[in-house]
């Protein structure tokens, strides 16, 4: 498909990388040039992604814009990229979030290095979402750690070095399992596939593992992804990393990097080991639901606004895990949608919290009061984003959570019942936090709180636009996500005795 035409997927990875090189070469004494170059390349990447979105054929099942070139032939590794309904919106989200977070958050020092790391990070995340070769995927999945480590460690807050280290060790530890898992997968599949290949498409079609082998391999992959998501109880790096990361770091971390885990589970966990994934379902469903409730309860107790948002991420990602492992068309489409929604609303929340910190130099809820009176537009913006995160109907959060819940109810009833309580808990912690920060009479320290600036407004506007659009009219997204999900479910059904329940197969847009 599209063979010989413009290699848009490679360009999506190469553009930010080229930007990083250009920024590196820019004069360090004139940060504005570096900034301009960085911004322009990330905007160019976003433009490319919009073009990708526009030319993506909805309704098609398999991968599109595939580009495949042999790379390390001795090991059966090729530069194999492709995009389908599951990765499409994650790619677009990545491309859109980066310029917005570059615009919305100022690093205050070391502009040049900051931009270089951000652009390398963007290329890494893009590569992870686009690669269809296990080796290439792992390469990008690992390489992402380095810029993120430096971003947290170099531009974060007080306890940044510790947080950066914790982040690195956790994720690299998880990856160690996947590293061995990937190689084992390739070698054990050699007989059934016929040759050594790291090609995901061929492996998921032809590879045939003994039941117990498949389960071990799934476990190796799942550990790496569970750390990344993070699934309870492997989540303890996340609150630290999020709280200490610079604003843009948090936006990217929550917006797209956590999605590497959920995306990985869908694409690699389910794609390569459907039998094992089906077998591990009860465990993952339970951990997902525990994450929802636990994340929400801990978030309620937080004194630090940023930490609160971080814990809310754990709860939201629990929904995604629930939807993924409920194995119905609706729940899985909901999960994919929820990945995007969470990226948009939590990304925006982190930006807003970052702006509060810029003004008040504190993130403690107790220090903030009555901001609504001094900065009504700021408060309004915060409210829309917060409501979307709660999942109020009409905004994007609702669509995803609703689909996940009704889809999961068919196959994972009691888990869903418990998870539904998480929706209410989300309202509790977010509304309560909003109340404490924005309502009431401002004291002296808060009376001078600056209103939303034009630039901040311009950054926030696209977020709110997306929040409302996806909430009101999610059909174009679902049209593109659905076929790929249907194919994935078929793949699971072929390999297990699982039968997706009828009502769920009927489609969503009736």
């Amino acid at each position, binding site marked *: 498909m599209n063979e010989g035409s413009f290699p848009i997927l490679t360009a999506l990875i190469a553009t930010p990388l080229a930007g990083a090189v250009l920024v590196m070469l820019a004069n360090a004494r004139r940060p504005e040039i570096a900034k301009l170059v960085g911004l322009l390349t990330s905007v160019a990447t976003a433009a490319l992604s919009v073009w990708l979105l526009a030319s993506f054929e909805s309704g098609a099942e398999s991968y599109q814009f595939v580009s495949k070139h042999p*790379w*390390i*032939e*001795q*090991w059966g590794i090729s530069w194999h990229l492709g995009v389908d309904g599951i990765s499409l919106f994650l790619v677009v989200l990545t491309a859109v979030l980066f310029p917005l977070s570059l615009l919305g958050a100022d690093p205050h020092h070391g502009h040049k290095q900051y931009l270089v790391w951000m652009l390398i990070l963007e290329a890494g995340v893009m590569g992870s979402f686009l690669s269809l070769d296990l080796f290439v995927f*792992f*390469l*990008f999945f*690992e*390489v992402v*750690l*380095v810029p993120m*480590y*430096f971003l947290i*460690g*170099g531009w974060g807050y007080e306890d940044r*070095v510790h947080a*950066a*280290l914790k982040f*690195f*060790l956790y994720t*690299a*530890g998880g990856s*160690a*399992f996947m*590293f*061995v898992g990937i*190689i*084992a997968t390739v*070698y054990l599949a050699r007989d059934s596939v016929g040759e050594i290949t790291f090609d995901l498409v061929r492996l998921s079609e032809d590879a045939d593992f003994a039941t117990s082998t498949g389960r071990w391999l799934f476990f190796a992959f799942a550990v790496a992804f569970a750390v990344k998501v993070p699934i309870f109880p492997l989540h303890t790096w996340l609150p630290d990393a999020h709280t200490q990361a610079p604003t843009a770091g948090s936006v990217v971390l929550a917006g797209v990097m956590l999605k590497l885990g959920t995306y990985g589970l869908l694409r690699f966990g389910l794609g390569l080991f459907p039998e094992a994934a089906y077998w591990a379902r009860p465990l993952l469903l339970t951990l997902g639901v525990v994450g929802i409730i636990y994340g929400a309860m801990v978030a309620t107790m937080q004194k630090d606004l940023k930490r609160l948002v971080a814990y809310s991420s754990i709860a939201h990602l629990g929904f995604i895990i629930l939807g993924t492992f409920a194995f119905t068309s609706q729940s899985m489409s909901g999960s994919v949608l929820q990945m995007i929604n969470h990226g948009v609303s939590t990304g925006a929340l982190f930006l807003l919290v970052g702006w509060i910190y810029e003004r008040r130099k504190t993130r403690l809820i107790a220090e903030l009061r009555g901001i609504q009176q001094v900065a009504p537009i700021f408060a309004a913006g915060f409210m829309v984003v917060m409501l979307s995160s709660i999942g109020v109907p009409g905004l994007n959060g609702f669509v995803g959570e609703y689909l996940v819940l009704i889809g999961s109810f068919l196959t994972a009833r009691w888990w869903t019942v418990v998870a539904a309580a998480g929706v209410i808990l989300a309202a509790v912690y977010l509304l309560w936090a909003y109340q404490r920060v924005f309502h009431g009479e401002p004291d002296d320290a808060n009376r001078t709180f600056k209103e939303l600036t034009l630039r901040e407004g311009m950054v926030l506007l696209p977020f709110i636009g997306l929040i409302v659009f996806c909430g009101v009219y999610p059909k174009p997204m679902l049209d593109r996500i659905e076929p790929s999900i249907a194919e994935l479910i078929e793949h699971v059904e072929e390999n297990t005795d699982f039968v997706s329940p009828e009502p769920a197969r009927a489609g969503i847009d009736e």
Partner: protein
Amino acid sequence: MIAQPVSTFTGPEIDWYALSPLLVLVAAAVALLVAGALTPPWPKGGYAIVTVGAATASAVLAIIQWQNISDDGPSTLVAGAVSFDLSAMFFTITICVAVALVALLTDDFLRRQALDGPEFYALYLVAAAGGIVMASANDLIVLFLGVETLSLALYVLAAADRRRSKSQESGLKYFVLGSFSSAFLLYGIALVYGATGSTNITRVVVYLQESVPLERFDALLLTGVALMMVGLAFKIAAAPFHVWTPDVYEGAPSPVSAFMASAGKVAAFGALVRVLIVALPFYREDWQPVVWVLALVSLVVGSVLAVVQTNVKRLLAYSSINHVGFVLVGIESAAHRAGAVDSGPGVPSVGVYLLAYTVMVIGSFGVVAIASRSGDDATSLDSFRGFATRRPVLAVAFTVFLLAQAGVPFTSGFIAKFGVVQAAVEERSYAIALIAMLTSVVAAFLYLRIIVTMWMSEPDDASVELAGAGTSNSWTGTLSIGLAAGFTVAVGIVPGWLLDAADDLTQFAR
């Protein structure tokens, strides 16, 4: 006078051309010593240029021989004493690369220390010749000669910084322990001779092939194997025979540490491959578990003990023990099919790892050598505070080397680790593969510690003082580090040619 029949001694036929890589090095060493003693001090960099020229010539000759061997198949030279196969040539090239890079570093170092003279270089060349003999020996006595030639040169080199007592201490420690281990090796060789009737590897193999197991002197042979393994494990610095490494590496002049960690280990691993995989494939069930344990202990000790070090040279010494563990993982997987016609991916992965590691470690020690300025004592972790602001280019290079040692993608270190783990997984040694990857996460922590100190710590008073002291460094050191960094990245991105070359390492001369 009693008349005796005249016995004429006929020496073996010698193929001088095939031995040329070795002869060039020896000739250059002799020439350097003689000419250096008879002439006034040579102009800037003169000795180093001759050394680099000799090493390059030797490497080029080895590449030419590589072509011949590929065409005609492996054979032995000098009446079966030296093997003439691709493995020997690969190790020759690796050692020559080490000599060239280290010579460039040494030039810079010696002039700063006001020690310039031909002795260092002549000793490097002699040591390299000894190392090549070790790696291409087809006779255990020849192997021992190689070990001694290499070691004696290294003892002197370690103590060569005449004015520093630490260097003297390092040389003495290395000498005492090294001679002790040589004794083990020699005793082991004697016992193997006693059991098999020959020291020639070809004849040992033939004897073991043809003799009836019950008639063999197994106790003698196994004791011999054990003693030889002790001797060689000392030379490669595998835990628990590693205790000398940190002290010696710390005390020796930094370029010499680089040489010991690279060429010294490459040669010793070459010898280990000869002894275990070529000579004793029939006893692999006996020595394989020993290698497994050595690998495990080296991996764990190297990574865990490195964490508590505060001196960069000691830190690199412990990390080198971790790397030894990785190479042993490769040897362990090669053991599964030792002696078979298709001996699997083990030996090639060892070769690739050693070449990649040689370049990385020389680069790392090279940066330390330049950073520690005159005196060679400022190697504590604290003296690297704020290094990135003082010497940004060097800091970038050091970061590349450290990331490569940590096995981050797009560096040669990743390819090397991938190859070794892949070999282990292919032979179903999952446990050791997983342990290796997990220890590499711990090791990543220590590399990050150095990186963090360079990039994220504010310089303190002591390191500011250091910054003022003589910043001059010549082009030779920079060239060496630049070449090493370029190679590290290039192999990470385009590894195909190296893997292709290493694939043929399995054909041993017998």
